[in-house]
């Protein structure tokens, strides 16, 4: 089955490499066999974050959704670090994070305002506004895009999601086979 070889720099292989590395790291932290459900849940969360992060990294910053995902994950990790108990450095970090978040939220609010105004001017699909909003919620980073770009991003996002699901299925398959 050597014909199954794929382009080593393709999205799939990049994602696979990254995700496997993250997975090994996560599994190395604690043995699974005797985990409590809480630990399982934590591990699940970490794996999910690792999956999303590795996919976003594989896409780099070429896509709006990947940038949005990376930004969100980074801010989440910062918040978690801040709340995990390092009191002395928390203040500085929280201030930085809050400034970052406020500026970014202001920026995003401005963008959203502007684009919504644009949308009102240009949007001739009033009937699709509801679905467009839902799609915007689903696709990360979709709030600040008009329908045209949103569909573009959605297409790429779907492609990457399918890749992700494929790879994770294969990994899970391997895991469960003995």
């Amino acid at each position, binding site marked *: *089955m*050597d014909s*199954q*070889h*794929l*382009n*080593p*720099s*393709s999205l799939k*292989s990049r994602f*696979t*490499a990254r995700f*496997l*590395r993250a*997975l*090994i790291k996560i599994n190395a932290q604690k043995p*699974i066999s005797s985990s*409590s*459900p809480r630990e*399982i*849940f934590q591990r*699940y969360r*970490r*794996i*999910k974050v690792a*999956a999303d992060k590795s996919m976003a990294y594989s896409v780099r910053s*070429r896509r709006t959704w990947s940038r949005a995902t990376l930004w969100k994950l980074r801010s989440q990790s910062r918040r978690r670090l801040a709340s995990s108990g390092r009191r002395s450095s928390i203040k500085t970090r929280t201030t930085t994070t809050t400034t970052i978040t406020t500026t970014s939220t202001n920026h995003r609010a401005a963008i959203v305002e502007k684009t919504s105004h644009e949308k009102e001017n*240009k949007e*001739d*699909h009033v*009937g*699709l506004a509801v*679905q*467009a909003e839902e*799609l915007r919620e*689903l*696709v990360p980073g979709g709030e600040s895009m008009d329908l*045209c*770009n949103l*569909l*573009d991003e*959605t*297409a*790429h*996002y*779907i*492609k990457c*999601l399918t890749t*992700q*699901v*494929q790879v*994770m299925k*294969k*990994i*899970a*398959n*391997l*895991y*469960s*086979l003995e």
Partner: protein
Amino acid sequence: MEKDKAFMSEELKNRTTTRQQQPAWNPCGFMTEMSTNELNCGTEQVGNYFFNPNWENSMDQSDPFESALSSMVSSPAASNVGSGENVMMRELIGKLWNICNSKDIITNSTNASSYSTPLNSPPFSTDPGFAERAARFSCFGGLNDPLRDSLKLSGHVNGTQTIKNSTLSRSSSPENAESGVSKEESSVSEQLPGGNNKKRKSIPRGKAKETPSPATVDAKVAAENNDESNAKRSKQNGTVKASNKEDSKPPEPPKDYIHVRARRGQATDSHSLAERVRREKISERMKFLQDLVPGCNKVTGKAVMLDEIINYVQSLQRQVEFLSMKLATVNPRMDVNMETLLSKDMFQSRGLLPHAVYSMEPTFPFGYQPQQGLALNNGIANTTSQQGFQLPQVNGFIDGNPQVGSIWEDDLQSIVQMGFGQNQAQCYQGKSIIQHPNYTRIRVGITQSIDPFFVWCRFNSSRPSEN
């Protein structure tokens, strides 16, 4: 001729970086960007007419869309001929170069025929870039009609007339009084396969500016006929010219503008034109998404299509969550194996594990069956419907009995309901899994039934607000 291709790809990249407003992955965007401004510039602008993918710049051939792109660029869109057409085009271009240099325009005019005989290439353009463009236009003969309409170019009214004249001469009886100019240009118009007169007219219209010097003598003769043709055409396409002139002047300097011609009987103000362009873009993207999302071929209408897309994205996201939960719980006794896999190519796994023929790969298309009703293989009882995302329940059983089996049941049940949303928990497969309290059996059960599990029957559950 290889340098042409290299040059084109270079231009493509340049264009990609400079382009701001054109995500323009559609061929209509490609074509509508041909302004006469650009046409004047010659070969340097060849790359402008390249498709501008906003996708990964690396031509990932596995992507059907990009493979379509590459096939369109290099060969007629209708067929993926590939190298044969490329060679033909290159010969065509070469011939044009030679012919332009030798100025054997008129003598060859009689030989100039359709694109199918590439050796008798239409011999009139002095602009080498024009030749390539013309050749490439022939690629779009296979385009379907909505695209053709968007291929209208606004051109200068002056030069257009020679070509217009030629198309008239072709469509009607050939006016023998005309010189070889009209014949040459009719050959060009013949080059463009497809019966749309408007398209043929518009494309050569843009080109007509490129025929100044060799056609100076002939232009005079043609000019007389031009007025007649103008009179004729003006009646037919009164609106067309108006919008033509409108569009040609303001959008010329900024090259990012899309040049659109108003169709007959449609409004010609810039707003509606822009809207029409937008609508066409959106419909192009919807078509592409239709290919991506399985089972959407029968769906018509943007709203329903968007619903399907939304549901598909949701199902994919839930699959990712489920799989990550599964990976979190499955015991990786094969850590060493994972490392070796990492070093090798991951996708040899199919060969490594011959018994891993679970047909995981192609089943997802079966799994995702939008609006087809329930397509479940195993008839299993309904789970009790529960509202909302069930993951908090996972936390709930920290307090519960820490038995692996019961935890698995609850875990899977919650995940199952998480996978299928609120009301109609059609996660029948989940029940079958839960019937195996044993850990190992659950694992196998999951893998065996994972794809039926992901049968996405109907997302009424996830979208209770609609319907």
